[in-house]
C-alpha cells in the first residue's frame, strides 16, 4: 500500500513513473490512455463474453464447472486454422489482401469451421466424459476431476497426437504460424482512441452472436427447455422436457460460441494458436461468468466485457506481466464479496 501511495504522489508530479519496487504502479498511464485501453479491453472482453456463455449455460443446467471448455475453445482455434488451410491459405508473415467482401466470406467460412470443430468437441466431450457419470449419478467432486482430466487430455492430444495425425502441420509444442487475412488498420477514433478494423469485426460479430444466443435461449422453444431444466430438472423432466437433449444442446451452443470466439481471438492474437492457448483464457472466461452471475446468460456477456476492460486497466497500472494475476485476483475478489455476481444467478434458481 505505501508503494501505491508513493506511486500516486510521484505520478502527480513527475509524468512517466520510474519507481524502484517489485511492482510498478503506473496510474498516470491509465489516465493518459483511458479510452484506448477501454476499446482494447472491450475487444478482449467480447471474446471472454462468448466463451463465458459456454461456462454459464453448462453451469446453469448441470451445476458443473466444465473445465474442459477452455480446450473446446482451443480446438476451435485449430478448427478455424485448418479451415483456412483447406481454403488454400498458408502461413506467411504478411496479411493476404483479398478485398473486403472475399475476406469477410473467408473469415465467415473459417468461423463456421471453428464452430463446427468446437461444437463437435463440446458435444463429444459431454458424450464421452460426462454422460456416463450422470448415468451413475456421481457426486460433484467426480465430475470436477473428470472435467480437469478431460481438459488435459484434449491439450495433450493437440500437443502430441495431432501433429502425428497431420504430419506436423497442426499442433505440437509450438504455436502455429499465423495466417493473416486482415491487417489491423485504424479506421477512426473515439475520444482519441484509435479503433481498428479488427476491433470492429470482433465487437460487431460478438454483438450479433450475443443477441442471437440471447434470443435463442429466451424466445425459442429449445431455449425454454434449457431454462426449464436449469430451474428444476425434476419437474422439467416430468413436463416432458428431454433432459439429455437439453444438455446436449447446451454443450453445442457453448461450443459453437467458443468456436466463434476462437476465430475472433486469432484475429486479435494471431500467434495464440497453441495447445496451451485456451487454459488461461478459459479461467478468465469463467471468471467473467461468475462476475456476471453464473448461470445467467446476460450476466456472462456483461461480465466478459467488464473483465476485459478491468484487466486491461490493471495491466497498465501494474505492468503487462501482471495481466493474468489481475484477472485471477479479480475472480477471487468477486467470489469473496459477491459470489452471486452482478446480475445474480437467474438462469438457475437461487440456492439457499
Amino acid at each position: 500500500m505505501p508503494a501505491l501511495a508513493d506511486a500516486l504522489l510521484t505520478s502527480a508530479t513527475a509524468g512517466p513513473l520510474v519507481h524502484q519496487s517489485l511492482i510498478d504502479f503506473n496510474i498516470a498511464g491509465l489516465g493518459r490512455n483511458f479510452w484506448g485501453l477501454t476499446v482494447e479491453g472491450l475487444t478482449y472482453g467480447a471474446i471472454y463474453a462468448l466463451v463465458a456463455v459456454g461456462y454459464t449455460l453448462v453451469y446453469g443446467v448441470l451445476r458443473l464447472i466444465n473445465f474442459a471448455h477452455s480446450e473446446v475453445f482451443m480446438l476451435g482455434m485449430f478448427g478455424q486454422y485448418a479451415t483456412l488451410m483447406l481454403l488454400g491459405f498458408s502461413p506467411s508473415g504478411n496479411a493476404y489482401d483479398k478485398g473486403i467482401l472475399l475476406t469477410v466470406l473467408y473469415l465467415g467460412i473459417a468461423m463456421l469451421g471453428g464452430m463446427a470443430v468446437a461444437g463437435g468437441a463440446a458435444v463429444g466431450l459431454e458424450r464421452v466424459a460426462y454422460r456416463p457419470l450422470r448415468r451413475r449419478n456421481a457426486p460433484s467432486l467426480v465430475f470436477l476431476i473428470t472435467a480437469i482430466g478431460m481438459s488435459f487430455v484434449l491439450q495433450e492430444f493437440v500437443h502430441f497426437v495431432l501433429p502425428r495425425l497431420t504430419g506436423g502441420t497442426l499442433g505440437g509444442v509450438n504455436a502455429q504460424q499465423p495466417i493473416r487475412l486482415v491487417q489491423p488498420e485504424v479506421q477512426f477514433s473515439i475520444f482519441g482512441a484509435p479503433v481498428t478494423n479488427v476491433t470492429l469485426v470482433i465487437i460487431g460479430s460478438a454483438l450479433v452472436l450475443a443477441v442471437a444466443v440471447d434470443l435463442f435461449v429466451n424466445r425459442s422453444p429449445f431455449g425454454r427447455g434449457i431454462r426449464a431444466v436449469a430451474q428444476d430438472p425434476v419437474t422439467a423432466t416430468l413436463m416432458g422436457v428431454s433432459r439429455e437433449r437439453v444438455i446436449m444442446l447446451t454443450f453445442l451452443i457453448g461450443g459453437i460460441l467458443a468456436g466463434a470466439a476462437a476465430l475472433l481471438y486469432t484475429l486479435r492474437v494471431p500467434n495464440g494458436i497453441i495447445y496451451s492457448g485456451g487454459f488461461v483464457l478459459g479461467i478468465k472466461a469463467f471468471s467473467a461468468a461468475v462476475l456476471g452471475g453464473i448461470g445467467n446468460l446476460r450476466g456472462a456477456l456483461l461480465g466478459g466485457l467488464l473483465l476485459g476492460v478491468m484487466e486491461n486497466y490493471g495491466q497498465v497500472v501494474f505492468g503487462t506481466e501482471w495481466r493474468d494475476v489481475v484477472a485471477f485476483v479479480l475472480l477471487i475478489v468477486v467470489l469473496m464479496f459477491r459470489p452471486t455476481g452482478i446480475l445474480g444467478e437467474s438462469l438457475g434458481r437461487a440456492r439457499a
Partner: protein
Amino acid sequence: MSTTTPATPPSLPPAGRTATKDRPHGGVGDRFRLWWDALARPTQWLVGVPFLLFMAAVPLLNIPVLTTQGTDFGGVMAQFGMIALIAIGLNVVVGQAGLLDLGYVGFYAIGAYTVAILTSPDSPWNQTGDGMWLSREWAWLAALPVAVAITAISGLILGSPTLRLRGDYLAIVTLGFGEIVRLLADNLDELTGGGQGLRGVAYPRAGVTEDLPSGVFSAGNASGAVNSGVWWYWVSLVFIVVTLLFVGNLERSRVGRAWVAIREDEDAAEIMGVPTFRFKLWAFIIGASIGGAAGALYAGQVQFVIPTNFNIINSVLFLCAVVLGGQGNKLGVILGAFIVVYVPNFFLGRQTLFGIPIDGDEIASYKYLFFGIALVVLMIFRPQGIIPARQKLLTYGRELYVAARRSAARAAGRAPGRTEAAATTSGKESS
C-alpha cells in the same frame, strides 16, 4: 424390526453391478487392513519393519525389470518419495476432506522457493555465507521448518476466504492460486530470479569424504549405487513415515471424522455440531504444510528452482496420484505416486519390452495424455481408485471390527460359494 434382512432402499440403483465391489469390507484395501488389524502388535512390527527396510533397499538391489534404464533409478526413487509425500498431503485435502484443490503445486512451489530464497546466493535475502546467520552446512535443515511454516500460513491465507465458497468454486479459485504463485515466481525478478530461477540452493552437508567433498546429498554425488538420489529417497522415506504417523493420528480422531463428515454431507455435519469451516481450514493448512515440506525436499535435491517446474499441470499429476491410488487411502496414494513417477521413467530410454521393440522415449513423452485419460477412465469406472479402502476413523474399538469380521467369516462358512472370506480360520467351525 427388520434387522436381520437388510431391506432394499426405496429405489434400487439401475443395475446391481457395482454392488459387489462395494461391500462393507469388500475392497482389497479393507481386507488388507482387517488382516493387519487382527495381527498382534509384535507381529505388526515383525512385518512392518522388514517391509520398510526392503522399500529403502529397492534402489540398491538392482532388480532386473524394475530398474529404469534411461534415467538413474536412485533419482527416480527420490522423485517418487517426494511425490508420495505430496500425494499424502493432497490426500488430506482431496481424499479426506473432499475439497478439490487444483492449486496444490502452489504450496509445493512456495516451499521450494522459501528454501531457495533463504539459501541461494542469487537471492537478495540469502541468509547463508559470511556474516549471515546460517552456515551452509545447516542451512537446508534450518530453512525446512521455515518453509513448512510459510506454506502453512499461505494455506491459511488462501483458505480463510475461499473455504466459505461452494465446493466447485474452490476448485477454480485454487487453480487460479497455483497459477498466481507461478506468475509471481516468474515476475518478481529481483526476489526469485524470474525465469532464470535461483541456483545454489543449500542442501545438508553430510557424509563428506575425500571423494565427495560436498557430501552425499550433493548433486555432485552422481555415480555409483548410493548416489545423491538414493540419499534423498531415504530422507523422503523418513518424511513419509513421520507424516503418515501424524496424518494417521489425525484421521483416527475427531479431526478425521469431521473431514469425512464434511466430505459426505457438509450441511448435516454442521448441524451435528461439526465446525465445518474450522476443520476445512485445518485440512488446507495441514495439506499445505506437507506440500511445503515436499517443496523444500525438492529444492534441496535439485539445488535449483525455476518457475517452469511449478506449472499447473503438476497439480493434475498430483491429483492423478491421489485418484489412482484411491482417495482417502494413505497407502493407496503412495502407490499412486509410484505409478505416476515410475511408469514414464520406466519407458524412458527403453528400446525393447519383453523382446518387443518399443520407442520408450516417445511413450514417456505422452505421460500427461495417459494420466489425463487415466483420470477420466477411473472417474467413470472406478472412482474409488485402484485399492479402495474405507478410512479408519476411530482410535479404539478395534475389537468391534474384529468381532464383525469373525461373524462375517462364520456366516460365509455357512453359505457355500462365499469362499474369499472363508479362507480364514473360523470358516472351518461351522461348515
